[in-house]
């Protein structure tokens, strides 16, 4: 009963926190309901969001996947032109899933708010999915909740739950798939897993890569080699067919979408390439950034030559790395190590690690690890989510160690402050090479966000219509950081209640 009450409390606090970040116009909170303004800091600042939103609008308002004149301009340069049609380069999953929210919001003149709010709600759902994941890794209830909150507030998951991009939903499907994978392999679970796989692909193609280890693991669980007298029998569970039953309908949906736009079930926007829309049907092709300058054998999105620079960018550099944007994530390594040492959770930890590693490795091999103009390593949000589950385990294990607590608290507060900063201001920080070559150079780190804070430049409705009468944006930022830190520390304090403190030592052995 106490736990249910605590979960409800956390949910309310999460929803409340979200309201402090929801974006609207500076003078009219409903400005973006009718204006597709790409102003820095607004909900449409990035074409990642706008292009997907254009698809949602096109579906609901125009009954068409292809874009009219107005939407072509909105979606550019995340726009494709093929056989006379203009459409988004992205897969349609985000638009399909949030379309009901758009429709509902349209009735009340708030289609943008409702669509974007759905991302926030999925972000909150992710918190609890990560709680479940952390429990599977051996974290106690409060430690698991802590892990979930750390994911939402101390990583760039917060900033991206305010956007209309694929990251939040990707985490949802990946974590659901992981939780499904440890379940019994009956036809229903397999059906659900197949559906999750298909939905993941619809949201973003690389989800297929990240969920591949899960698929392989589940497939493996269906086979059993048994020695019977002089013969060997390979036993195969028929429930395997559930995977196909789950994935095929969604693949058909995807295929049908492609068929409508490209006249082929398998030709997708990302294979065709981007164009800039110049108006009146005129286009300019955008050069494809290849991962390497050598002509490859096949056109694949990954190559090993950029691995070193990609790893540097995503893990170490001040441009995008976890070290600068959410160092708390690294404590997850400790937690996963602890979980791995536990024989009950060893296998599941290996599976979680596989998904983390493939996320990191694949995006270090990607031609654009920066993710364009973005905040922190946005492509590593799924890995961050899984690591945060591990943070819960680490805190569970080392909660009595004052040195660990000191490190944990320091980097937790830092991580929360940086991500609240991003959520309040902008997600669109350019890569270094672009930032320095702008007509008016801007910083390529969160220094840019700090500049915006000092200019009191935020599109937070709550700030612009209430808080700014009393607080500068900087003070608001500090206050929110404090508030969110308190929320995050609630489960932590409950965890500490029964802890006996010891001298600093790291003991990896099971009690």
């Amino acid at each position, binding site marked *: 009963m106490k736990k249910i009450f605590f979960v409800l409390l956390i949910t309310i606090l999460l929803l409340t926190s979200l309201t402090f970040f929801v974006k609207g116009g500076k003078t009219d909170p409903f400005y973006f309901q009718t204006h597709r303004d790409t102003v820095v800091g607004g909900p449409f600042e990035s074409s990642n969001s706008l292009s997907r939103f254009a698809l949602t609008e096109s579906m609901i308002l125009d009954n068409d996947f292809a874009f009219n004149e107005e939407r072509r301009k909105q979606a550019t340069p995340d726009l494709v032109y093929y056989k006379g049609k203009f459409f988004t380069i992205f897969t349609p999953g985000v638009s399909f899933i949030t379309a009901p929210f758009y429709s509902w919001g349209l009735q009340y003149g708030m289609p943008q708010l409702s669509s974007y709010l759905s991302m926030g709600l999925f972000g909150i759902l992710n918190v609890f999915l990560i709680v479940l994941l952390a429990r599977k890794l051996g974290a106690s209830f409060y430690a698991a909740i802590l892990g979930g909150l750390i994911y939402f507030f101390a990583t760039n998951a917060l900033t991206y739950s305010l956007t209309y991009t694929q990251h939040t939903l990707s985490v949802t499907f990946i974590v659901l798939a992981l939780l499904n994978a440890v379940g019994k392999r009956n036809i229903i679970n397999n059906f659900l897993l197949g559906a999750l796989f298909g939905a993941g692909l619809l949201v973003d193609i690389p989800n297929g890569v990240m969920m591949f280890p899960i698929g392989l693991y589940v497939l493996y669980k269906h086979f059993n080699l048994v020695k019977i007298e002089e013969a060997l029998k390979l*036993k195969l569970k028929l429930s395997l067919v559930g995977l196909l039953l789950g994935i095929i309908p969604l693949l058909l949906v995807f295929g049908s979408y492609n068929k409508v736009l490209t006249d082929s079930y398998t030709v997708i926007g990302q294979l065709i390439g981007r164009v800039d829309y110049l108006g009146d049907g005129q286009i300019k092709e955008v050069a494809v950034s290849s991962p390497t300058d050598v002509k490859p*054998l096949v056109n694949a999105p990954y190559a090993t030559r950029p691995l070193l620079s990609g790893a540097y960018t995503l893990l170490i550099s001040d441009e995008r790395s976890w070290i600068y944007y959410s160092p708390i994530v690294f404590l997850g390594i400790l937690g996963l190590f602890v979980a*791995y040492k536990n024989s009950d959770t060893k296998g599941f930890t290996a599976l979680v690690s*596989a998904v983390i590693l493939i996320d990191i*490795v694949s995006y270090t091999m990607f031609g654009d690890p920066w993710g364009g103009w973005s905040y922190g390593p946005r492509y590593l949000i799924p890995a961050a989510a899984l690591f945060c589950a591990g943070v819960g385990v680490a805190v569970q294990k080392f909660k009595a160690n004052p040195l660990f607590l000191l490190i944990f608290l320091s980097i937790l507060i830092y991580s929360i402050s940086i991500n609240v900063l991003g959520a309040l201001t902008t997600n669109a920080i350019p890569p270094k090479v672009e930032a320095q070559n702008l007509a008016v150079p801007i910083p390529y780190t969160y220094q840019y966000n700090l500049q915006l804070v000092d200019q009191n430049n935020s599109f937070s409705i709550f700030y612009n219509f209430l808080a700014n009468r009393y607080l500068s944006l900087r003070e608001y930022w500090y206050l929110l950081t404090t508030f969110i830190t308190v929320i995050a520390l609630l489960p932590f304090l409950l965890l500490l209640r029964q802890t006996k403190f010891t001298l600093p030592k790291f003991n990896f052995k099971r009690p």
Partner: protein
Amino acid sequence: MKSLEFAVNLPVPNKLFLKIADFFRKNILFLITVFLTIVSAVSFWFFYSNSLGLAYNDARSHLDIGRRVVEGLKPGFAQLGSVWLPLPHILMVPTIWNDFMWHSGLSGAIVSMISFVLTGALIYKFLEKLAVGIWGRLVGVFVFVANINVLYLQSTAMTELLLLFTMTAGVYELMLWHKNDKVLHLIKSAFYVMLSTLIRYDGWFLFLFAGALIVLQIFRSDYYGSLKRGFLSKLKVAEGAIFMFCTLAAFGIFLWLLWNLLIFKDPLYFAFGPYSAHSQQLQLESAGNLTTKGNLMLSVEHYSYALIYNSNLFVSILGALGMYLLFIDKKIKTGVKIASTALLAPLLFNILALFLGHSVLFIQGVSGNTWFNVRYGVSMMPSIAIFVGLLVDRIVNLRAVLIGLVIFVTFFQFTSIDAVTIDDARVGSSQKNVSEVSSWLGKNAKDVDGFVLISAASHDAIIFSSGLPMSKFIHEGTGKYWESATTNPEHWARWIIMRSYDDNDSTWKTVSKTPDFAHYEVVEKYPFADIYKLKDEFVPGLNTKPVLGKQK
């Protein structure tokens, strides 16, 4: 609800299945060797058919050196020259007399290919001796074999693969000696180390390193008596072992010093002569291009880049983790761990060479806009493969994850043709597009009597690529022909190939000062060299036959 199961009978009865499994278990090394041979041959064919096998300037030079031993105006083993150690060229001699074997590069490549197969087998054996299970051994071999840089170099007449084989064999036997104290392994180790000292100077470092390890092992191992009983007795044992080891292992070094003394009148001619790496490095240093000299951090950084680009970052990290596990593994004897430090000898040697200014390495984007000698990073591949194999073996529950990721990364390495050694050969400083000069020679000098005067030290690639017989060329190694041609060129050289106004080109340096030089006209100017032709009125006075006979 119990899950429905569908049972399928495998078509193989258990007994036969076990027989097959047993066959594989007993013959796995043979099967791996066969597989590696096929991979080697296919790789050679692939790179040869894409005209990449001879892209390295050095590969062409190595082949020419081997050819000069058997064919030319002054054939003989003296053509092995100095600076480059002789074993790779000696091994070409049985096949390089054949024009196809010479001009296809197969004469040198076949040595690399055999070395590749043997190194792969050695990696398997090394891991077997470290008690690594079958999966770990296969992954270790895979990491080495599925490296596109290794596959490329093994298809060329470069010396890397031969060096890798001999060094790995030397370390393997040394490890076995540390494991079971049988003196035969020490002798075998000395033999392979000796071979490596005749391939590249990395082998000389291994010789010193191995020597130090032997002394250490004797002092720390109770097998050779207790240290408490007497330091002197241990010292005697160490002395004996070192003497036995060095007699064989250092023999190659001794022979090389002797060779330089006999042929060039200076035992250190290879180190300080005009064509030595030292001279090259001096020039680079004066041009400000020897940035790693005296800078340890930069040396470490540059070599690390080379290592990572050759193996890819992911495999490098796995290798580092595997190395850590090897050294903390309580199941492995301390002596074996100590011996395994020799697997790091290539790393230490290359960093030291960069630091001392004896080596140069350009990494594109880090030290300029080109590649040079980045292939040195491949020296650690057998070691990395062994470390990765051990890692995969020890971390049982993550084994499938690691194997999957290695396959994932390797797949995209191949699809993106990420081979930094090929980049170095094609567009880096190791390449020389001399096709214009060599094509001109091939077209205009082939069926016309007369010699070509050219510096082999500067233009070996032109000699190779021209397709003309070695006996067509007068170069530094042709003794009296060279002496005569560089003082009276109009009597010997119908054509002169040289880089005008460059005193580093020994032909220009000598010929440009002779009165006969006025009797030549420039017929073509190309980026790497200019072509001079003897004016028609002086042709009647030209010697077109090798009249100087056999020279000593």
